[in-house]
């Protein structure tokens, strides 16, 4: 399958990079990473060879047929959610844990809403989320004494 060939190529490069990078370390420090890197390269080559066999091609055809007949993931939703999640993580220290979490939570609920969902339902979900976030933040800050980042706000 094509994705296996791509994965094998990427992993072979990762192994090669690991092996070359480890060359800079002392004998005992590089022994283990280099052994693992060589194993990774060999396994990647095996995966590549497997993906080129006739059996793999048949499996790819069956897989594509299955995908066409089955559920298709919502790629747009996944990408948008991932962007919100990345922003959530990066802004934690700047804005503060609670503020970022509440904003990102609300945004994520909005992004994930169904096209035909009523506005009241979306607002209810956002409200429930904000409440849960606040409860957990209080639990961690006060009861468990975890110093969550305070940032510009809280």
């Amino acid at each position, binding site marked *: 399958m094509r994705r296996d060939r791509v994965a094998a190529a990427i992993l072979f490069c990762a192994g090669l990079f690991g092996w070359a990078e480890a060359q800079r370390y002392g004998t005992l420090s590089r022994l283990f990473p280099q052994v693992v890197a060589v194993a990774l390269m060999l396994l990647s080559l095996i995966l590549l060879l497997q993906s080129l066999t006739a059996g793999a091609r048949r499996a790819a055809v069956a897989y594509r047929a299955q995908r066409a007949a089955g559920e298709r993931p*919502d790629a747009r939703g996944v990408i948008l*959610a991932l962007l919100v999640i990345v922003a959530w993580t990066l802004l934690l220290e700047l804005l503060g844990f609670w503020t970022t979490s509440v904003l990102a939570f609300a945004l994520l609920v909005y992004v994930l809403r169904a096209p035909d969902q009523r506005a009241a339902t979306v607002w209810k979900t956002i409200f429930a989320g904000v409440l849960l976030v606040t409860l957990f933040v209080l639990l961690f800050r006060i009861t468990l004494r975890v110093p969550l980042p305070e940032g510009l706000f809280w």
Partner: protein
Amino acid sequence: MPAVLQAVLTVLHPLNLLLISIGVTAGIGVGALPGLTATMAIALLVPFTFGMNVVHALVLLGGIYCGAIYGGSYAAILINTPGTPAAIATTFDGFALARKGHAYRAIVVATIASAIGGLVGVFFLLFLSPPLARASLRFGPPEFFWLTVFGLTIIATISPKSTVKGLIGGAVGLLIGTIGIAPIEGNVRFAFGTVALQNGITLIPALIGLFCLPEILDMIGSRYHRETAIPYRSQRHMLRRVWRLMARKPWLLLRSSVIGTVIGIVPGAGANIAGMVSYNEAVRVSKTPEKFGHGAIDGITASEAANNAGVAGSLVPLLTLGIPGAPPAAVLLGALLLKGMRPGAELFTVHAAVTYTFMFSLVIANIVLLPLGLMLGRAASKVVSGLPITLLAPLVFFLSVIGSFSIQNNVADVYVMLALGVVGYIGRRAGFQPGPIVLGLILGAMCEQGLVQSILMGRAAGTPLAIFFTRPISLVLIALTVVSAAWPMLARMRQRHTPAVAAAHTHPIVEEKRDA
């Protein structure tokens, strides 16, 4: 004997029973949250015991330890994220069962297995502590190296669809595990000048990232096809039904509990590895190995019985030698020392009454765990099943962020979680499962240390490689490794000769239906 009798009476005091119940409940609560480990549960709650007398403090902490290790199964079953690393193997079948609408059934299995595993572990602790502790001290670097190699053979079992992809995942995990300071020479490896990477990749954020984030993104990707992440099917007399199923396989329970106890005793191995090894053995011995990974209750039984048995196992070297068998036991050691109790012979002579009270409190904790676990588990499975994906996905990510951060109060751990989560999601789309990667990550450091230290020992003796193959425990572990590595291949060859099973394995549509 009077000390034992006194201990039994003390532990049955209503106040102690209450403290054990509080400890188990608090432990379940903390363990169920992804990122909060049993170690953290005990460490967070130790300050509350400062003002207590030694017996009250120890029974409370023992309850927390048992509850937290068991609580990890909730998140593993309900959101495919091990609440504690000990519950990794529980995700393989627990979440599969939950997706079929049987979340509570999976929790009942986990609860019964945990309680029985815990009780078997305490039996070993009570009656066999001194000889077992002495045996565990015979583990040197070569034995640790072979133990980890044995652990890595589990990859063949947890990647039935593609062993090569499983092995690649394991190698990637081992390579990620080498990030940070080298254990022997002290070189900083693969940090690329980043301070955050110098201490290496912390296990918990990696675990959350690899298991949790791909699941969240999958939930999001499929939200138009299903309203909730997991459906909920109510069944009457669940406890009786599950118990009947589990009682048919007493050997599975006993074997898993013994594996958990023995691995828990080996310092450094702990419940994380115990669950995996036990799962592997359950698959190897099973007459229907093809059911594992698709919601087999035997898989949940094996993992949960072993990890809770490992709790008492980790206390064997702690109480007899002062060597903690696992990180939570190390925190308990601190609590013991704070109370003026020095592990070793003194615990069984001068402080015998207190020590036996602590041991018997673990019996009670495992008994109390059954009703409490069933009650809390029912509520948790109903709540999670009732949440729409639009609320559950952001909530789980929020818990992932807070859990990753709280490990070291460091935002860098959140970045690690996110990065590995994205890698895990892409890997999953390409057919790579997170289990082997995490296994490599867990075993990597111990494997490297065992390898390098053994080579140094061998060099000093003038035979660098002979040391790996000449020690009795090493030879046993090598034999186990060979059997464990060859078994899945032999099993698959045997299945190919059985026409019906072979057809089910090669037909892609059947494979897909089994996944559903």
